[in-house]
């Protein structure tokens, strides 16, 4: 697939994100979802989708209109050093997300003591995942 086609798909996805975001916001603010967590979830997801969609559309249009900018962006995206750095960041990001999940679970268990056992089980699962991720990163780094 060429780069221009990818940009057009990105543009279409941007429109789709906005539509989904608007739907989520309508559901949140029309009172169809109960207040509290579902409302926050719908409104937050909707707002995020709308913002992402707008950014994606603006970026795609800018690149589709300007050939030199498009060429630079293509080089930046497919540059092997950038891809190498990106892969390393993804590994770190995964580990960091798991640590955050671990802390959030611990905090939630302290807030609701009756849910301590399920939370503790979740924490154990988190720890297992952390170990697996660490082993995976270690093996991958030793192979590079």
């Amino acid at each position, binding site marked *: 697939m060429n780069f221009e086609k990818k940009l057009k798909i990105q543009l279409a996805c941007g429109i789709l994100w906005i539509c989904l975001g608007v739907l989520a916001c309508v559901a949140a603010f029309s009172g169809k979802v109960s207040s509290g967590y579902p409302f926050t979830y719908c409104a937050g997801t909707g707002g995020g989708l709308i913002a992402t969609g707008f950014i994606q559309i603006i970026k795609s249009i800018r690149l589709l209109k300007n050939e030199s900018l498009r060429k630079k962006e293509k080089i930046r995206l497919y*540059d092997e*050093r950038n891809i190498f750095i990106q892969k390393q960041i993804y590994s770190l990001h995964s580990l960091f997300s798991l640590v955050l999940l671990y802390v959030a679970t611990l905090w939630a268990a302290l807030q609701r003591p009756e849910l301590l056992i399920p939370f503790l089980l979740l924490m154990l699962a988190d720890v297992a995942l952390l170990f697996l991720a660490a082993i995976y990163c270690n093996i991958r780094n030793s192979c590079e």
Partner: protein
Amino acid sequence: MKTRIQELRKQRKLSQEELANHVGVTRQTITSLEVGKYTASLLLAHKIAKFFGMTIEEVFLFEEEDES
């Protein structure tokens, strides 16, 4: 890994940006290659060597300690 990229580029009076555009990478990648902070893939090494009209061994100076 040591390379002769900077030397060869200067001989041909090229900027890092121009060389980067010719081989399809960013200027930052050329900088990293020149200072030895990044080791090029075989494909990129081939592209650079081909651009200078040389072999990979003539552009990229492989040393025993690079193996570790």
